[in-house]
């Protein structure tokens, strides 16, 4: 069976051994050919790991130095042996691009075995199928198994594999393959492929020749160092092992695993009032008619689409909550509309009508004639109960009567009208035609003078008045401040919503990633199982040999 050998990082980093050439197969795979030995392989026959360049300077035989070296030079936590294909498959899929570090599962010791012949030493297997040697007397533990323990451990492994081969049938191979067999004793970084021949026991299937293992050669392998075994048996508990493991993990992850921290805090909470306010904003922004019942809003496709497609619709979790929010909003909105209308009502019809009179009314026309002439004009039509025909007639007659008087008289009347206004309505800051209060403009005396003379006259009158009273200015400033505050609050709410959305999206993405990863792992495991099920007549031994041949 072909294993994926796609390792961009490896390819980039390792030079080929002399005599080898790189070629591309028609399928797109890269393969390597040695013209001298007529050998070809998919596996890059590279010079052994990059760390060899660094390693010689470090004396790795000292375990303390070795551990420190590991902590420094291992930026990647590697689940070295256990998920061989799983990680390999995933890395291949990522195409050699390394985003954030994957959240590292916490490891735990699972079982321990005393190493025969080296009494205080024990071999600890972890949940992730890693293992390390531990000396309870010296309280020292090493991922890299010390050299002098190696033969004993090898024997242990062989015995175990033999036992399993007897006990079970085919699937044993995969299980043994999954158990960790760390690096060989010897030099810190020899090419793993050549190694197994030192201990050529057929049962001792080499796991290191996997994608996950050697896909990142820059990462140093766990290194073993020799250490003097201190004598004297010491009580060794699970707690000890756990503590050791934790310490090692801490060493190991010298970088902060920020992804883990991110996972803990959920989306930033959005307070209830903020959520309601956001929903109100939504309703206002969509110009929803406050008179429309809520059920209709959700039934009508036009409004329902607009509402539900907005993010702010979802800040309230239930439709009941939304309905309550809508209720308060619609009440407030209807009240506001009512107030606004009442204000307009006070000003509108009379002012328009008087302006119309100023332009069109002449003493030559009697009221019935005037009315007949202009009956199509808007301001002559029905203006509701408050401003009917009788009112119009009265205003017309009054207007005609005043137009007939002299200009000076009319000015005097206008002055009387203006004098009746308070300082708040009319002051030196008033802009003349527009700023004049509605009460003045709805009076006949306002229109009886022609526009130009009137504006000039009023301008002069207004200049003679005092400045606007203080409290009014304060009132407007307060209003402005309130508006500014409302705007600020709204901005804050929207920012909170954005933050929340971002957090949710992030969480979703992370979950998808995890799902994909798990899937890939499952597929890999299935493949391995399948592979393990294929056993020919020669049995386990034959299969193991065949696998080695393939490689």
């Amino acid at each position: 069976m072909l294993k994926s050998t796609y390792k961009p990082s490896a390819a980039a980093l390792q030079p080929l051994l002399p005599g080898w050439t790189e070629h591309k197969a028609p399928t797109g795979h890269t393969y390597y050919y040695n013209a001298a030995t007529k050998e070809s392989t998919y596996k890059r026959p590279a010079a052994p790991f990059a760390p060899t360049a660094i390693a010689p300077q470090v004396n790795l035989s000292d375990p303390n130095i070795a551990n420190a070296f590991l902590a420094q030079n291992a930026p990647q936590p590697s689940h070295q042996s256990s998920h061989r294909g799983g990680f390999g498959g995933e890395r291949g899929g990522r195409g050699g691009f390394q985003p954030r570090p994957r959240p590292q599962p916490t490891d735990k010791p699972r079982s321990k075995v005393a190493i025969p012949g080296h009494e205080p030493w024990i071999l600890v297997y972890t949940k992730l199928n890693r293992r390390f040697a531990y000396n309870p007397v010296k309280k020292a533990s090493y991922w890299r198994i010390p050299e002098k323990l190696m033969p004993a451990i090898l024997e242990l492994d062989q015995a175990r594999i033999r036992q399993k081969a007897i006990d079970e049938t085919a699937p044993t191979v995969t299980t043994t393959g999954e158990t960790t067999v760390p690096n060989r004793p010897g030099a810190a970084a020899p090419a793993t492929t050549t190694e197994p021949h030192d201990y050529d026991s057929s049962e001792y299937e080499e796991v290191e020749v996997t994608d996950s293992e050697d896909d990142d050669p820059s990462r140093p392998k766990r290194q073993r160092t020799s250490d003097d075994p201190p004598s004297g048996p010491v009580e060794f508990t699970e707690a000890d092992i756990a503590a050791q493991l934790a310490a090692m993990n801490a060493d190991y992850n010298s970088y902060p695993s920020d992804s883990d921290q991110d996972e803990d805090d959920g989306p930033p909470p959005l307070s209830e009032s903020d959520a309601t306010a956001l929903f109100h904003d939504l309703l206002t922004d969509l110009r929803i008619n406050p008179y429309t019942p809520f059920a209709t809003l959700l039934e009508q496709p036009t409004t329902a689409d607009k509402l539900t497609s907005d993010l702010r619709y979802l800040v309230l979790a239930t439709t009941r909550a939304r309905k309550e929010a809508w209720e308060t909003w619609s009440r407030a909105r209807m009240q506001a509309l009512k107030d606004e209308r009442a204000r307009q009502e006070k000003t509108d019809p009379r002012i328009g009508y008087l302006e119309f009179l100023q332009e069109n009314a002449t003493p030559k026309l009697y009221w019935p004639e005037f009315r007949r002439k202009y009956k199509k004009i808007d301001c002559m039509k029905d203006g509701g109960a408050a401003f009917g025909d009788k009112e119009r007639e009265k205003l017309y007659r009054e207007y005609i009567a005043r137009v007939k008087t002299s200009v000076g008289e009319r000015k005097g009347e206008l002055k009387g009208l203006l004098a009746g206004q308070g300082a708040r309505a009319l002051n030196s800051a008033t802009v003349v035609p527009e700023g004049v209060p509605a009460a003045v403009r709805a009076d006949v005396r306002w229109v009886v003078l022609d526009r130009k003379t009137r504006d000039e006259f009023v301008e002069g009158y207004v200049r003679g008045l005092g400045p606007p009273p203080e409290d009014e200015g304060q009132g407007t400033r307060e209003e402005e401040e309130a508006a500014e505050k409302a705007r600020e609050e709204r901005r804050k709410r929207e920012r909170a919503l954005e933050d929340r959305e971002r957090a949710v999206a992030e969480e979703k993405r992370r979950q998808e990633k995890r799902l994909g990863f798990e899937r890939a792992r499952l597929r890999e495991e299935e493949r391995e199982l399948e592979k393990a099920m294929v056993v020919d007549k020669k049995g386990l031994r034959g299969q193991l040999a065949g696998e080695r041949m393939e490689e």
Partner: protein
Amino acid sequence: MPAVRPASKRKAPPEGFSDLEEDLLIFSNKMKDAQNAPNDNLPRHQAQWPIFQISHQRSRYIYELFYDKEAISRPLYEWLLKNGYADPMLIAKWKKQGYEKLCCLRCIQTKETNFNSTCICRVPKTVLKEDQDIQCVSCGCRGCFSSS
């Protein structure tokens, strides 16, 4: 036959009607659809249900606008009642204690039932058997008893 009044001579509705016009139009369209919907393959007693329901919704809408939200003026409210947009008799019941959610007038008409009782939808849920799902015969109501 009453005099036919052209639209131009018709008296305009009181102000504020334009706010509700659209929603009332939606209600009347719904009502027309319900009236014209085929009722061949549904039980005979269910044929009127949608009409009762829409009528209830529309009356409720106007009732709430006037009494609850105080969003429409009394002249407009009276005009709406006069023009048949809401059922004044039903609204009159809603003002009474114990009838705040009444579904239709037929459901409290005791004289029309065999044992001089009201409809099943008037029975409070606490009195009903556990998990008893009911739908009344006259208007398809699932329960219109008053609760706190």
